[in-house]
């Protein structure tokens, strides 16, 4: 299958390989989420005792997987793109385009990391500076909002780093290498 054959992009460097390995954890999270939903259906329908935690846990696990999946695809260079012009130009121009795209994406991720830091600080500390994690406000009331917001910040930082490494390696790599990993 095309997606599995595609491994981490060589330009992604060691960080890319770590991100690729880390994927197992979040992929397992998706399977676990399916199991929890099934358990919830079972407990509710058969025993008439729905849990308070199943839906929020499932959403949490999938939320983490969604965020990590974005980083995972950056490391694999598998995000969807329009290659109409990109494919038509020569390898030299393409190499510079790769550098430019990586730098622009780096800047964007950097801005978002900064913005999510503002969000995270509100989710982890009260306005007076006391530590308290923002909770969901439900009957179970887990601190998932704070955790997911914090995880988003980590993902954006990792993404910025990954784009930095990509920009650097595209700049360094010979032109023909750069075209090997395109979608």
């Amino acid at each position: 299958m095309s997606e599995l054959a595609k491994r981490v992009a060589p330009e992604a460097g060691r960080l890319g390989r770590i991100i690729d390995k880390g994927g197992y954890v979040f992929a397992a999270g998706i399977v676990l989420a399916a199991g929890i939903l099934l358990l919830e259906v079972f407990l509710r329908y058969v025993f008439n005792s729905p849990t308070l935690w199943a839906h929020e846990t499932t959403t949490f696990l999938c939320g983490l997987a969604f965020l990590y999946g974005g980083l995972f695809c950056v490391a694999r260079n598998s995000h969807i793109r329009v290659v109409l012009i990109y494919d038509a130009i020569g390898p030299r121009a393409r190499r510079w385009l790769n550098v430019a795209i990586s730098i622009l994406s780096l800047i964007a991720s950097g801005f978002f990391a900064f913005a999510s830091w503002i969000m995270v600080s509100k989710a982890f500390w009260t306005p007076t500076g006391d530590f308290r994690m923002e909770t969901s406000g439900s009957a179970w009331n887990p601190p998932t909002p704070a955790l997911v917001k914090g995880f988003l910040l980590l993902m954006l930082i990792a993404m910025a780093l990954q784009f930095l490494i990509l920009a650097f390696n595209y700049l360094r790599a010979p032109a023909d290498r750069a075209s090997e990993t395109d979608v």
Partner: protein
Amino acid sequence: MSAVLDFAAIGIGPLTLWMFGLMVALLLTGMPLAFVTLLVALVFAVLGYGTMAVPIITSRIYTFVESFVFVSVPMFVLMAALLDRSGIARDLFDAMKLIGGRLRGGVAVQTIFVAVVLAAMSGIIGGEIVLLGMIALPQMLRQGYDRKLAIGVVCAGGSLGTMVPPSIVLIIYGLTANVSIGDLFTAAFIPGFMLAMFYVVYILVLSYSRPNIAPPPDPVPMPGAEKIKLLKGLILPLLVVFFVLGSIYAGIASVTEASAVGVGGVLLSTVLRGEFSLKMLRDSAMQTLATVGMIVWIGIGATALVGVYNLMGGIRFISELMTGISDNPTVIVLVMMAILFVLGAFLDWVGIALLTMPIFVPIIKTLGLDPVWFGVLFAMNMQVSFLSPPFGPAAFYLKSVAPPDISLGEIFRSLLPFIALQVLAVGLLIAFPGITGR
């Protein structure tokens, strides 16, 4: 950093054009789509409102990934990955050939029926297209179907999830317009089925009028024992479908939970067939992660763009477009349709609903038109938006799992006839509102 440009002085009209222009320009560089929309949102947020507006984007990212209804997307993708790795998908399509084999284009027609059944199991799009893209597309290509037809069938059929009830588009419309969701579901049933029938007729006409579109029917009669062997391939998939639909319609599981029932059913099927292994589960889960990473981040980019565009006054812009156009209700509805088509090219349906519904629904009610009929019309219009380039989510979802030699350009070209059929359905709904049964 504070605002750089005075957006109020430039006006929302020109800003909209700039926004679209920048988006298309960046897309053409080959920048990943998700980062194009995120970057455009960022640029406009910073230029118009300064860095303090950027948290809008991160806040919307957070909300998007923490939404319960999207849980069904990874479930459908996981189901697809498991079906693909087991022999179930192949057996299913071989068996389908047995039933529809007498007909030219029979398997493509059956794929549309599978799509309708999937649509009755799901309220959103994304999951079904990925599922059909992984299962039906390779099988149709293997059997010698025309590539463009196979691609179109998968994308158009897979989009039916929001037209056939249950549908999140109709639910959100109902909550926004304050009309009965039950009435919307009832009214959408025939139009949804009508659209599916358009696809079927198109497949058959094309298969019989042109050579090399669909494989010719097998002239040699198959021995009975062979037939029974093939038909066995249908049993497990049909049982899974039965359990998923049954769990929804018997009130055992919510629509989102039912997607997990599907995963459980498929896993159990692989165990029964003796195909289950931990490696298969792990590989399927990894593929799910890679696929949802692509799909979800496209959605993230779209939601970011909508938030910033609403901040810029997008809703006011739509309202300005609508003021004083005509007294004729038909003209007004047609203008609305035109606006929806244009927005559908660039935005996702959630954004379109947010932008247009506050303006359109009160107008429809004032004109004395039926808001339920309009809701179905809106859902039909969103079918077009899923396929229309440059922002056609259905194409992106398929691209995320299609063989690498199928380019986005080819997918969009393949979708054109199906878009025409959808536009025809929109036209019929306007000309004959009675199709909704109201």
